[in-house]
């Protein structure tokens, strides 16, 4: 899984059925210090994450389809958690806003 920050949403009316009535979040990927890596991913929200929150992103298809209970859906990235705090041996916590 990856760590990211919710930076926005994507609105799409014409889309694969699995994305209908689901929130698509634009997530900037972060390193352990909370700095942007320059990468980003559009992920389906499975936990009700909000603006600016630090989140856990699953970027793997089998798990994503399981989370969304959509066995044949073309989905790979899902936000599966809102991170409260990260502790590392380098003491670089990312705190929930």
């Amino acid at each position, binding site marked *: 899984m990856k760590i990211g920050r919710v930076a926005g949403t994507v609105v799409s*009316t*014409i889309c694969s059925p699995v*994305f209908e009535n689901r929130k698509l979040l634009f997530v900037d990927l972060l390193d352990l210090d909370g700095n942007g890596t320059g990468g*980003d991913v559009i992920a389906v929200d499975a936990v009700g994450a909000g603006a600016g929150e630090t989140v856990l992103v699953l970027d793997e298809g089998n798990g*994503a389809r399981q989370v969304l209970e959509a066995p044949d859906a073309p989905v790979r990235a899902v936000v599966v958690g809102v991170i409260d705090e990260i502790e590392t041996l380098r003491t670089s916590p990312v705190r929930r806003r």
Partner: protein
Amino acid sequence: MELGRVTGTVVATTIYDGLEGARLLIVQPLDRKLRPRGRPVVAADGVAMAAPDDLVTFVSSREASLALPPPPGPVDHAIVGIVDAVEEWSQ
């Protein structure tokens, strides 16, 4: 998924059986500010409605083949949505 812009189409008359009928489009990946990032890819159109200049979301790797009608074909990028808007949240 990633954000991208359709910049062209690809026509291939001779093609693997599983890809017959699939529309192939050239997609330039974009970042959140709609700036180009990386090299363009050829993506199958999983919504069958994407056209040049459309802003789209596309999925890559094995999941791309699930965007087309079964059985899963040899596809590594597929368009799964046409984007109406990208709404940024200021920090």
